[in-house]
């Protein structure tokens, strides 16, 4: 009986490992689709292709929510990793918030349909690219937290780098916007988008900071 219980324990652990991987896949994929969707919006406006990509991110966000809840419930009902489950819970919830931010930006594009001047489009593309790189790096750092704790620091370093780059791009972009001849309402509208996209990189950095502490706590 003990043996079968142990076999079940291994099986459940394997299932949970797969679920955590799927959750991180969803986050990584949503960042890639987001980058693509904003690219489509900047080139062609709010087209069917943009809406389709937005819906794709919506689906990923719902799937990630379900996975997160399921993982959390399993961690607590099966009393797994008692020492680290609080940290894992915090990590998953903060990562989930990144998908929420991405989804929120796409909703804003679809509902508010901002008019982006041509001279600012490259700036937005760059900002989205830097934010998505930061998300990618924090996904890698999170995977390392579960499998190869020593590599977390390397990935965290990249998150911080891309967040700093995103900050530089967003400052430049806001300056360009406010130095232009646009109306104040339009300027403020565009600024809101810059800040929302930049928030994605900022939040990724916050998660990286948490990870750095979790690593210290988990040192044998």
């Amino acid at each position: 009986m003990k043996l079968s219980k142990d076999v079940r324990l291994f099986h459940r652990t394997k299932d949970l490992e797969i679920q955590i991987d799927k959750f991180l896949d969803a986050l990584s994929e949503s960042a890639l689709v987001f980058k693509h969707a904003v690219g489509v919006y900047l080139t062609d406006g709010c087209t069917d292709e943009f809406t389709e990509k937005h819906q794709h991110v919506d689906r990923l966000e719902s799937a990630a929510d379900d996975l997160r809840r399921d993982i959390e419930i399993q961690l607590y009902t099966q009393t797994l990793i008692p020492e680290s489950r609080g940290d894992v819970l915090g990590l998953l919830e903060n990562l989930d918030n990144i998908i929420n931010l991405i989804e929120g930006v796409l909703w804003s594009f679809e509902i508010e349909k901002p008019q982006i001047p041509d001279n600012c489009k490259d700036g937005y593309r760059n900002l989205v690219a830097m934010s998505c790189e930061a998300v990618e790096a924090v996904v890698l750092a999170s995977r390392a937290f579960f499998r190869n704790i020593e590599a977390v620091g390397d990935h965290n370093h990249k998150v911080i780098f891309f967040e700093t780059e995103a900050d530089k791009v967003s400052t430049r972009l806001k300056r360009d916007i406010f130095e232009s001849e646009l109306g104040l309402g339009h300027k403020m509208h565009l600024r809101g988008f810059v800040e929302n996209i930049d928030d994605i990189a900022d939040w990724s950095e916050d998660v990286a900071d948490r990870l750095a502490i979790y690593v210290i706590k988990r040192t044998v």
Partner: protein
Amino acid sequence: MENTVLLFLTSGLFLGWALGANDAANVFGTAVGTRMVRFSTAAIICSVFVLLGAVASGAGATETLGKLGAINALPGSFMAALAAASAVHMMNRVGLPVSTSQAIVGAIIGWNLFSGMPTDSAALTKILATWVMCPILAAVFSALIYKFMVWLIRHAKLHLLRTDTYTRIGLILAGAFGSYSLGANNIANVMGVFVPANPFTDFNISHVLTFTGGQQLFLLGAIAIGVGVFTYSKRVMLTVGNDLLPLSPIAAWVAVLSHSIVLFLFASQGLETILSSNGLPTIPLVPVSSSQAVVGAVLGIALVKGGRGIQWRVLGSISLGWVVTPIIACGICFVGLYFLQNVFDQTVFN
């Protein structure tokens, strides 16, 4: 069996109960404290393996105690065990970590002094040297195993959840081994003083298996330890473990394993036979302190980690307990024997 015999055995059972209540925490404390293993699982495994160790391998360390002083009258054994148990209880009340091994040795010397029997200085030296060696050996084992585990974890790159599962299984296995070693090594403390005046006789089970009087005595002691584990050790398990140094579950596993190896080394007659038949120096079979082995093991890990975070004050109080326990037990035994002989008119030595 006469009621008086049972009455005299109660002090040994009390000592067994105290040992179960305290020392089970050395084996399963951190595992239960960190919720890696449920208390009920720990208590069942601990009781079963203590019993196996005591009955199968308890004779070696008992022999050494017997050399120190063979208490040859049951009332004398009763008082020695009672003195040891009282010393353990007193030390617990003042919050000092305590060793039943040291208490019983103190009590035996008390009986020797009272009865005018000589204390075998060779046996005493052997026991004292072992007490010093026990934590040092545990520290060496834990430092080596810990270093190896750090290397292994770095290279194996296991998933956090997988590591958790392996650690859980490791804690249960090390706990079972630790309980076996605890039973084998420390049953001598609980029942050793009753062996020369053993009231039980051998009996055969269908002419195949002989259940010796000594084994019956050890079984009784092991049951008392089991009762101590079930009734009182949970509280100790939940408070002990992080006193000296906060440990991660893997470090806790290393500590328990090292402690168990040391207790096993000082109790295994099989190992002694193998060593002596190969012309190698043997390890003395002596009851050692489970608590001091764990302290040594934790210290070994702490030193590998650079010595940060050690509660030196706790270490100081442990060393104090080391000296004070045998003295108190010796004193109580001496005074108790005087009363037993002169007030209750009992023969405390022959």
